[in-house]
C-alpha cells in the first residue's frame, strides 16, 4: 500500500513540476508589410506594448511577409526594412571575407517607439495583419 502512495506522490510531482514562468502567453501573428505598395524584401517587425507592461514580441519580414510571436494587447509597431544591393567587405583588410550589403528602405520614424504611427490591437492569433508604409513619412 505504501508503494502506491509513492507512485501517487510521483504522479503529483510530475503534474505540478512544470508550471514554469514561460512566454506561453504569446500568440502567433502573420501578415504583410509593404512600402509605397511594394513588398519589403527583408527586415523585422516588433510589437511593443503601448503601456510597456509586457515583454516585447515580433518577427522577421521576408519578401513582404512576416511571421512572429507576441503577447496580446494594444501594441505600437516598429518596422525595419532593407534591400540587398550587392556585396561589401567585412573588414578593411585585403583578405577580408564578404557579406551582403543592405540598404535601408524604411524611414527611421517607423523604428522608434515614441515616433511610430503604427498601432494594432492583438487579441488572439492573427494571419491577416497588414502594414502599409510610406517612404516619405517623417
Amino acid at each position, binding site marked *: 500500500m505504501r*508503494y502506491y502512495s509513492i507512485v501517487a506522490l510521483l504522479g503529483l510531482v510530475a503534474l505540478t513540476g512544470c508550471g514554469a514562468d514561460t512566454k506561453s502567453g504569446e500568440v502567433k501573428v502573420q501578415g504583410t508589410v509593404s512600402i509605397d505598395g511594394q513588398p519589403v524584401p527583408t527586415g*523585422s517587425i516588433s510589437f511593443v506594448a503601448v503601456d510597456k507592461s509586457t*515583454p516585447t514580441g*515580433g*518577427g522577421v519580414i521576408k519578401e513582404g511577409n512576416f511571421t512572429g510571436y507576441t503577447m496580446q494587447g494594444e501594441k505600437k509597431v516598429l518596422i525595419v526594412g532593407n534591400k540587398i544591393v550587392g556585396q561589401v567587405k567585412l573588414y578593411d583588410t585585403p583578405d577580408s571575407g564578404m557579406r551582403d550589403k543592405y540598404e535601408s528602405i524604411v524611414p527611421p520614424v517607423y523604428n522608434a517607439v515614441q515616433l511610430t504611427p503604427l498601432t494594432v490591437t492583438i487579441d488572439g492569433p492573427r494571419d491577416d495583419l497588414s502594414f502599409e508604409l510610406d517612404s516619405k513619412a517623417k
Partner: protein
Amino acid sequence: MVIAIIGVLIALLLPAVQQAREAARRMQCTNNLKQWTLATHMFADTYRDWFPLGGMNGTDNPTKVQNGRSYHRVTWAVQLWPYIEQTALYDQYDFNEHFHNGPNPATLRVAVDGYYCPSDKVGAIQDQGDANWRVLGNYTANMGNAHLHHTGADAAAYLGSPFRIRHVSRLSEVTDGTSNTACFSELIIASPDATDDSRGDFLNNEGSPGFMSLLTPNASSPDQCIQCKDSAEDANNVDFRRIPCSSVGQPHEMQMAARSQHPGGVMVSMCDGSVRFVSETISQGNWEATLSTYGGEVISE
C-alpha cells in the same frame, strides 16, 4: 518489488540530477558575470570614475573620447584583461592598431574561461579558415535603450548606459543606483565554427559587444545584426524561437537582446556586483528601467 522501488527512486533522482547540473552551470555563469563586473569596478578605480569604452568603430581612428584617451577598433573586454588576470594578453595587445591588425588577432584567439557560460558552447571559436578568426563569448555589456550606434530618435530618448560605442560613461553617472542598474548579461553564441552570425563575436565592435533594452530578454522579436545565420531568420526552424535574427546593413539599426540557455530567463549582473536572474516575462518598462543609468524610474515588480 525491490527492483520496482529502486526503479521509482531512480526515476525520481534522474531528472533532479540534470537540474542540479544546470544549477551548477548557472552558478559558474553567475560567477563569470560577477568577475566582469568587479573588473569594471577596478577599471573605474584606476581610470578615475570612467567605465571601459564599450567599443570603438572604424571611422576617423584614432578617436579621442570623453576620458581623454584615443582608441582604434576595440571592445570593453580587451580593456578589462588586466583585471581578470590576463595581463599577459594585455601586454601583447597593441592599442594603436584595430583588433584585426598587427599582433592583436593572436591575442583574440585565446579562449579565456571567463568568456563562456557553461550552459552554452564553452570554447566556441569562429571558422579557422577565415583570415580574421577569433574566439567567441557569451558575455555582453549594457548599452541601454538605444541601437548599437544611436539614431536621432535614440539620442532623444536615451536614459544612459554604462557602455556605449564611441563614448564612455562615468560610474558617478549611475544615479539610479548601482544596485538598480544592469552592467553585463549574456547572449547565446549563435554559430560556432562559422562566421555567418554576429552573436557571440563580442571582441568585435560590430559583433555583439552589447545588449539593449529595445528587446526584452529572450525576446521573440529578432535581434538585428550585421550577420544572421539562415536558420535564425527562418520561421520554420527551431532557432527562430530561441535566437531570432534579421540582417541589417547599418550599426544604427543593430540591436541585440540578452539571451540565454538557462530555462526561463537570463542572468544579469548589476553595477554593484550583485548578479540576479531576470525572467523573460519582465515587462518592457521594467527592463528599460533596469538598463538605464539615470532614468529615475521606479522598478515595479
